[in-house]
C-alpha cells in the first residue's frame, strides 16, 4: 500500500517513514507542497498524510489543489495547532481525518487504517466478532469466552467490542475515550485504566491465557494470536 507523506520536518519525516514501513506501508516523502503535487499526479497513492505547516503553502490549500487535480485518496491531516479550524472540520466531514501533534504512533496507525477501510468497498457487517476463544454476538450484546458467557455491563461490552474490532493493534487511552465515550479529553486520572482492569478481570479468568495486554506508555492491545 502506497502512502504519500507530506511533511517538511526531517525528524518527524524519518520517524514516520520508519514506523510506517515497519507497519507494512510503502512510503514516499514530499518535503513541500510543490513536490507533493508532482508526486500525487505521477503515482496513485491510497492515502496522503499532510502536515498543515508546509514551507511553501498552507496544507489545506494543498489539499484543495490536489482535490481539484483529481486526487481522490483520503487525507490524514497533521496539525501543530491546538484548536481545529473550521476548514479542517469541513474536511473531516468530507471523509478525511486529522490528528494534532504530538500524537502516539498507535493512534496515527489506527486513524490511517480507519481511513483506508472507509474508502474500501464495504464488506457486509458481520454480526459476530471472534478473537481466539473470545466471541461477541453483536445482536444479542453477549460475549462468551471458551463458551462461558461473560457478565459484562453495557459499557464493558462496548469497550470490548472496540478492542475486538482492533484486535492485534494498539489502541491508546485517548482513542478509547474518543470511540467508546465519544469525548476527546485527556483526564489527569487513570479512569480508562480502571475500566480496562475491570474488563480484564471478567475476560481473562483464572487459568486462562490473558487476552488484554497493557503496553505501558502507549495503550492496550487485544492479542489475536
Amino acid at each position, binding site marked *: 500500500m502506497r502512502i504519500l507523506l507530506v511533511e517538511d520536518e526531517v525528524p518527524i519525516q524519518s520517524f514516520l517513514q520508519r514506523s510506517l514501513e515497519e507497519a507494512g506501508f510503502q512510503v514516499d516523502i514530499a518535503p513541500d507542497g510543490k513536490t507533493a503535487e508532482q508526486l500525487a499526479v505521477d503515482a496513485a497513492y491510497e492515502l496522503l498524510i499532510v502536515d498543515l505547516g508546509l514551507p511553501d503553502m498552507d496544507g489545506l490549500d494543498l489539499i484543495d489543489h490536489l482535490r481539484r487535480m483529481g486526487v481522490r485518496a483520503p487525507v490524514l491531516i497533521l496539525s501543530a495547532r491546538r484548536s481545529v479550524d473550521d476548514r479542517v472540520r469541513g474536511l473531516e466531514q468530507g471523509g478525511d481525518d486529522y490528528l494534532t501533534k504530538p500524537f502516539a504512533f498507535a493512534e496515527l496507525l489506527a486513524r490511517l487504517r480507519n481511513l483506508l477501510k472507509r474508502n474500501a468497498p464495504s464488506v457486509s457487517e458481520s454480526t459476530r466478532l471472534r478473537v481466539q476463544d473470545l466471541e461477541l454476538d453483536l445482536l444479542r450484546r453477549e460475549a462468551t469466552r471458551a463458551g462461558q458467557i461473560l457478565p459484562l455491563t453495557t459499557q464493558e461490552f462496548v469497550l470490548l467490542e472496540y478492542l475486538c474490532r482492533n484486535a492485534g493493534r494498539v489502541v491508546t487511552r485517548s482513542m478509547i475515550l474518543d470511540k467508546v465515550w465519544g469525548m476527546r479529553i485527556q483526564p*489527569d486520572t487513570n*479512569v480508562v485504566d480502571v*475500566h480496562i482492569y475491570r474488563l480484564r478481570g471478567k475476560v481473562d479468568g483464572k487459568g486462562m491465557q490473558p487476552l488484554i495486554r497493557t503496553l505501558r506508555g502507549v495503550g492496550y492491545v487485544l492479542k489475536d494470536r
Partner: protein
Amino acid sequence: MFSKTDKGFRSAAWRITAWAAVAYAIGTLFVFFSLHRFVARDIQRRSDAWLSGEVEVLGDVAQRTPKDSLYQRVVEEVAELASREVPNRDETEAPDTAAVFFLERDTNNAIQVWVGPGKSADVAHAIHQSVVRQDKPSDISIAGFSIPYRVAMARLEDGSTVYLGLSERDQLRVLANLRNQFLVVWALVVLLGCAIVFSATRRMLNHVRRISEAASRIGHSDLCERVPVSKRGDEVSHLATTLNKMLDRIEETIHQLHTITDSLAHDLRSPLTAIRGKLELSLSMEDVEEQQDAIIASIEELDRLTVFLNTTLDVAEARADALRLNKSAIDLCDLIQNMIDLYEPSMTERGLLIRYENDGPSFIHADPSLIHRMLANLFDNELTHLPDSRTILVRVRNESQSVNLSFEDNGPGFSEDVISSIFAKRIRGRNSQGHGLGLAFVDAVVRAHNGTVSAFNRDTGGACISIILPVTHAR
C-alpha cells in the same frame, strides 16, 4: 522625524477653507442684494415724497402769483430755491441746478415757465411721449441726458400744469457708493472668515496629525506611549481617548502574553529536565526492563506535559477573551451521565459514592469539547482531592434562563489558604498530584460561555463548586 511638509501629507484645511469661502461669499452676496434693494426703494420713496411736496408748493406759488410781467421771475426764483434742497445731494459739491427742472404749461400746452438744464422743448416732448400721473412721480428719459429724470406733476385750477423733474443722478450715486463700500467690506469679511475657518480646521487637523504621528510611532516601536489627548472633550479628543483605550488593551494583552510565555518556560523546564535526565540515565542501564521503565515513564511525562501545555494556553486565551468556541446544542444532563459512567469505576475503587440528581434534559449552546474537558476536570478534582469513602452529589437544575450545575461532597472542604484564589492559576491543595490548572481551566471555560462559577465550603461541611451556564439558543 515627521515634518509638516511631508509629501504624503496634504492638509484637508485648504479644502475645507475653500468650501467655507464659497459658502460665505454666496451667503453675504445674497444678504447684500436684499439690502441693496431695500435701500434703493427707500431712496426712491424719499425723493418721490420730496417731488410730490415740492411740485405742490410750486403749483401753489404759481397759482397765487398774479399773472403779470413779474410772474415768470417770481416762479423762476422759487423754482430755483427749491432746486437747492434736493434730497441725497452730495454736500461737498457746489449746488447746481442741473439736477432739477421746472416746467409750467398752460391749457394749450404752451410753455409758460422753464427753469432747468437743456432745452425746454426736449423736456416738453419727453413729457408728451410718456404719461405723467398726478398722484405718483414717474421716470422719464430726456434726449441729451444719459440719466433719467423722475418727474412729478400738479394741475392748477386754471387748467395749466406744472412739472418738477429731479435727475436720478444723486440717487444712483448713493447706490454706487453703497456697492463700492460693500465690495470692500465683503472682500474683508470673506478673507477674515476664511482665515478663521482655516486656522480653526488647521488647529483641529494638527491635533489629528499629532495623534496619527503618535500612533505611527507606537506602531513602530514603543507600546507604552499614548496619543495626546486635548482637554476640549470634542470628537478629536474622544478619538484620542478611544485610541488610548485600545492601546491599553493591546499592551495588557501583550503583557499577559509575556507573563504566559515566561511562566510556560518556567513550568516546562523542570519536567523537561526530568525527562531528559531519565532518558540519559536509561542509556547507562544494563537491565533492559529497567531501561524500558525509564523510557515509558518519559513518554507518560511527555503526555502529561502536552496536556498541561494545551490547558495553559486555553486558560490564557480564555483570560484574554480569545478562546475560539465551536458551539452546538448539547444536553448537559446526558453528558454528565456519560461522564459518571466513565468515572464511576475509579470512584468505586476509592470507595467514593457518586449520586446524581437532575431535572431531565438540560440543553445549552456551548462548545462540546471544552465542556467535556471542563467536566473531566471537575471529576478529576473530586477524584484526586476527596479522601476515601465519601459521597459526591452532582446536581443539574434547569432554570428559565440558565442551567445550574453543582458538585458537592462531604470531604474536608477547601482549606482557608486556598479558597480565596481557588480559580487562579496553579493553585494546588495539599497532597495534590495534578498540575494545578484544573479549576483555573473550569473557570476559563465557564467565563468563555458567559457563565459564573463559585467555590465554597458548605455549612454542613464539605466543598461545593457551583456553576451557572446561560441557556443561549442557536440563531
